[in-house]
């Protein structure tokens, strides 16, 4: 049984019609932010959801955490469906699913010391026991995120810390509750290159300790290096999914191929042959019929305008949603 199982999840945001639209009774339009996606996540696994902005990766993560309501689909956590649970029933689950945001400058309260920031989740969820037991858990969490010795950091405020240290504090506050699932939404994109590797290595170590990590990233190099599996999203759908090494070395979907071809390589001798797609992804209000990628696809054939492809081959570890993939 997977720790997390998502089936046919869809999220829509209604668009305001405006006065003219309401009076004229124009049909209500909506943004199909997530449009029927399925995936699983195991304990000790890191799944990277990658794609360009607007592809629905962040909405997916927020929906999994039940911060956004889906219009259809099913989310199961440890085999139990959580899609319909009310806020009260969700509460015991909340502490088992935590999130780390992109910007540690915004996610940490500037008035709280490191000790208070890491202790806060314990107080909110009424766990952690006595004051001294809580202090012990805060210290443990700081040690796990390598802010050692903890005494050096307990009394500090966010502004006294570097970006990398702040993100480590945010991770400590997420793992102090011993969650089973950690969502990391662009966890290093605001950090300097010199400290990114450390934060990613830390997430990798937590994963190796049994934590399931759902990482949202636009950075394919990071996903390639740290993810066990990669799911590539385009306009609200997963268009390719598989073991990270497989997806990167042997991409199947034309979108994945193009995306990988434009990632700048570190070594100047690795000359790139970028396959640049023109334009930008259409907005998720008017999703093209057939394959949603066909208007930008360099390999599209007439049938792509009619057929909305599913991920194939069914049941395989590496799948792509393209009729040209056999």
């Amino acid at each position, binding site marked *: 049984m997977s720790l997390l199982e998502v089936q046919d999840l869809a999220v829509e945001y209604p668009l305001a019609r405006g006065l003219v639209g309401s009076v004229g009774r124009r049909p209500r339009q909506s943004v199909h932010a997530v449009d029927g996606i399925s995936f699983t996540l195991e304990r000790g696994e890191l799944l990277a959801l990658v794609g*360009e*902005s607007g592809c629905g990766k962040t909405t997916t993560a927020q929906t999994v955490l039940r911060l956004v309501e889906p219009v259809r689909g099913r989310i199961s956590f440890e085999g139990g469906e959580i899609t319909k649970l009310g806020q009260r029933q969700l509460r015991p689950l909340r502490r088992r699913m935590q999130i780390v945001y992109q910007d540690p400058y915004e996610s940490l309260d500037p008035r709280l010391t490191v000790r208070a920031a890491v202790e806060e989740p314990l107080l909110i969820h009424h766990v952690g026991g006595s004051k001294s037991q809580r202090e012990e858990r805060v210290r443990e969490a700081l040690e796990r995120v390598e802010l050692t010795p903890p005494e050096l950091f307990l009394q500090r405020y966010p502004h006294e810390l*570097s970006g*990398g240290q702040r993100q480590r504090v945010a991770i400590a506050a997420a793992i102090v509750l011993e969650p089973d699932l950690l969502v990391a939404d662009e966890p290093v994109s605001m950090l*300097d*290159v*010199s*400290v*990114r*590797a*450390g*934060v*990613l*290595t830390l997430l990798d170590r937590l994963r190796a300790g049994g934590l399931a990590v759902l990482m949202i990233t*636009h*950075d*394919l*190099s*990071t996903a*390639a*290096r*740290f993810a066990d599996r990669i799911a590539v999203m385009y306009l609200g759908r997963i268009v390719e999914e598989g073991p990270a090494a497989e997806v*990167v*070395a042997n991409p199947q979907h034309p979108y994945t191929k*193009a*995306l*990988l071809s*434009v*990632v*700048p*390589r*570190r*070594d*100047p*001798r*690795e000359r*790139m042959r*970028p396959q*640049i*797609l*023109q334009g*930008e992804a259409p907005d998720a209000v008017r999703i093209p019929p057939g394959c949603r990628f066909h208007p930008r696809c360099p390999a599209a054939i007439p049938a792509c305008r009619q057929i909305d492809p599913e991920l194939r081959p069914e049941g395989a570890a590496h799948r792509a949603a393209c009729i040209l993939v056999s």
Partner: protein
Amino acid sequence: MTLLALDDLHVWFDLGEGRELHAVQGVSLELEPGQRLGLVGESGCGKTTTVLGLLGLLPPSASVAGRVLLNSVDILAGGEESIRPHRWTDLAIVFQGAMNALNPVQTVEAQIVEALELHGRASGRAARVRVGELLEAVGIPRDRATRYPHEFSGGMRQRAAIAMALACNPSVLVADEPTTALDVMVQAQILELLDSLCRDFGLALLLVTHDLPVVAQLCDRAAVMYAGEIVEQGPVDALFHDPRHPYTRLLFAATPDLHGHDALASIPGSPPRLDRLVEGCPFAPRCDRAFDRCAVQRPLLRELDAGREAACHLNDVLAVTA
């Protein structure tokens, strides 16, 4: 002949109470016509301050020393008076957030026409024709000229900002993190555009970024900045394959690569504060090869081979033992 040269540029910011921050500590750079030079480093290393200083765009709290030679003429010597005639006409700039460079209440065409008229390049109908050419050169259909910036996507806005920068046929384009806020496919489009502009118009490019792979792919040469000074510069191939400063080597080692299998490693610690005097090598506390001399003596940037410079005592040691 060298097109643009920075000669020992210093920038200090007045912090009040007699304190000051020495943000740029003697930067020298040279740019040949049509050359692409990357200026790389972590945030706070002084790369943006360097280019703002070079363009005379620093706030009044900053004081600047050194020379900026454009075709061997010091354009910094006479302050704003001597820089203004060259800004946009010889030296153009594109910033990270294209939205900030464009006026939201004017059409794209009107803004570029205004720039052309202001610099006496063209006016009226001729100016509008020129705008059409410029937009086409950056990949925006002419018929979009009368749109407002908010009607453009992020990538289109950055293209429009580049079109505006090119309006007066500059010889140098300074691009400060031009693709940082963009998605990878749009970034690829903008990088391809910059590449073709350099090739087709012989434009020299000074690209400021923290993104090493972008520099590795787009630039001929790169200068690595740390704590307000250049610690190494040379051809990008040499910097990657034969770095002569540990900071360069460690920066590349901290950068993930799509097909790389090496273990990534952070650089421990953080850069020194620049509001106090740094003793010895500023990178020594974070360096994996520091030795006793590094703590007390500041290494100077010096030429190693033709076109290669580094500021590291290890190069002396190697020279002696070799």
